[in-house]
């Protein structure tokens, strides 16, 4: 560390001394400044590096290691890929768990598409704009626990949603929504998209109102309107925001709806609403298969990585054309 610290300025100082332009006194002063800056730079960054290493990097590497072992929290024996092959991919409920995750992720584009349409309505509407904005964005302040508890009650057998159905003569559809395998999954997906709908509307609305208004105005004067205006002018202008919404919401679908599932269905009935993320929790802390949980953790990381690469590619492409 200390050797490294002195080397770079010393080289620069030599270069300065050889150059005829820089007077020696100025170069010495400059050298001290550079050395000082390097010294303080390292010192300022040090706490973050130490904490992040101890609490993120080291446990992640431990997780990677334990995912290749049979581990009960105390002792571990190397088992190679057994946790991935037999613990995850060949386990009897994996097909359903993967399907659940895929369903939640694939529902996101539909939710975001609806958000784009509504954001466009909002951007073309001055009436009560601040109020709508405030209301739509509100779910961001609500926790999954609060949302989950409320909807679990709303959707329960004797809950208000069934009450509403019977009162409008659709009583034959009323059921315990979270009790059936398919209806529980659909309920989770709808509640998840409900929570992100307004957030995405506001983000896209922000994009639409900060976009260059002169382009929209020029297009309008040229006779563009309605659907054509929406697809040719509005969408290209907010493309980055659409990508952001897709990525944020999909990432949440993969790695942060644990609490929603925990409070609404606890992953059930059976594993019908268990996603990859929720399986990590049940495998580790309900069943005690910690190394399988660690393997799920690595799997989730790889999925996040794929998302990031896709996003980076999309960004590069957008910059190219």
């Amino acid at each position: 560390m200390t050797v490294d610290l002195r080397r770079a300025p010393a080289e620069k100082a030599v270069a300065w001394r050889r150059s005829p332009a820089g007077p020696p006194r100025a170069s010495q002063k400059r050298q001290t400044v550079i050395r000082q800056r390097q010294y303080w730079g390292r010192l300022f960054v040090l706490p973050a590096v130490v904490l992040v290493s101890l609490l993120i990097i080291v446990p992640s590497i431990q997780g990677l290691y334990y995912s290749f072992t049979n581990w009960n929290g105390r002792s571990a024996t190397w088992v190679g890929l057994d946790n991935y092959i037999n613990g995850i991919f060949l386990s009897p409920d994996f097909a359903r768990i993967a399907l659940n995750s895929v369903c939640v992720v694939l529902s996101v584009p539909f939710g975001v598409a609806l958000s784009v349409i509504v954001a466009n309505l909002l951007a073309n509407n001055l009436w009560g704009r601040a109020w709508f904005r405030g209301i739509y964005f509100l779910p961001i302040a609500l926790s999954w626990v609060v949302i989950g508890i409320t909807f679990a009650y709303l959707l329960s057998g004797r809950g208000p949603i069934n009450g509403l159905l019977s009162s409008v003569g659709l009583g034959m559809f009323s059921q315990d929504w979270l009790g059936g395998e398919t209806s529980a999954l659909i309920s989770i997906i709808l509640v998840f998209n409900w929570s992100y709908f307004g957030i995405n509307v506001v983000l896209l609305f922000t994009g639409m109102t900060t976009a260059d208004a002169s382009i929209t105005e020029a297009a309008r004067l040229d006779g563009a309107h309605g659907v054509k205006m929406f697809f040719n002018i509005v969408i290209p202008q907010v493309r980055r925001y659409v990508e952001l919404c897709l990525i944020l919401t999909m990432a949440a679908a993969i790695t942060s709806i644990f609490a929603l599932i925990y409070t609404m269905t606890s992953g059930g009935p059976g594993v019908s609403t268990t996603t990859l993320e929720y399986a990590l929790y049940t495998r580790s802390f309900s069943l005690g298969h910690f190394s399988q949980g660690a393997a799920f953790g690595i799997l989730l990381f790889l999925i996040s990585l794929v998302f990031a690469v896709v996003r980076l590619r999309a960004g590069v492409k957008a910059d190219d054309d």
Partner: protein
Amino acid sequence: MTDRNSTIETDTSNDVPLSATPPRVAPPRSSSAAHRTGGRRVGDRISALFSTGLTRIVLVGLAAGTIAPLVFMVFKSLTKQDGTNAVTFDAWAAVLNGKLPQAGLISLQVSVIAILVILSIATLAAFGFAKLSFTGSQPIMATIIVLMLVPGQTFIITEYFNFSHLGLIGNIPAVGVLYGVTQIPFATFILTNFFRAIPDELVEAAIIDGASYPRVFWSIFLPLARPAMVTVGVLAFIGVWNDLLIALLFLPTPGSRTLSVVMAGAQDTRTFDVSQVMAGSLLSAIPCIIVYVIFQRQIAVGLTAGTGK
């Protein structure tokens, strides 16, 4: 910004020859002039009125759909569940005299510690990365920012055993620090971008005038960074206050449970009292709703931080 605009222009110019509308360079047409003077035909006016009305109905309907569960919670928490729907504050009284206020205090402690950790550590690091570049600073910064991609689940199990071996399960300050550190990558990313936009000359001038680097950081950059720090702090508060997974695993002892943990557990118990659960949910949501009402704009700015360049 400029490439985005050029993209849009090429898109439209590609499109125009295909459509039946006149080319872009056409002189102003009478119809568009009529639009501006308000001399529209009756049919146009009716359809405009219709679309405005429809827009408003859709927007109001969706707003109602968004806020309905919240209204429902308020209603349930304030009424008797015996069919009469008489207004009563029993549920609120029961909740306020129960274990929720204590849990709220723990949530507050954890959140405050996390925010202090994030803001102090990440502003220091961001200043170092943005203004005091040293040999190897770029790879280190890249590593920290790449950690934004690592989901908490990847390290939570091993972290749990590490904490357990050190006897830190149920230790509120330690878990507050853990929460803070999980958000350092994101906070460093935002704050580094923020500091980079401030001219280097500001540092150089102050150094030439004899100020030390810590002094430059403390007296010049920290005050300038206030808006970015507010954004980071607000997002961190909402994230920590609302989190369940880490709290559930790391703060399981009765005296250390956060609001989220208590609420998530309340639902399981056999004595499921709708009014009390709704009152409790609202109570646990109120701090975040207040923060949201005050800092709405900063939250949106923080979430869109990845889009701008």
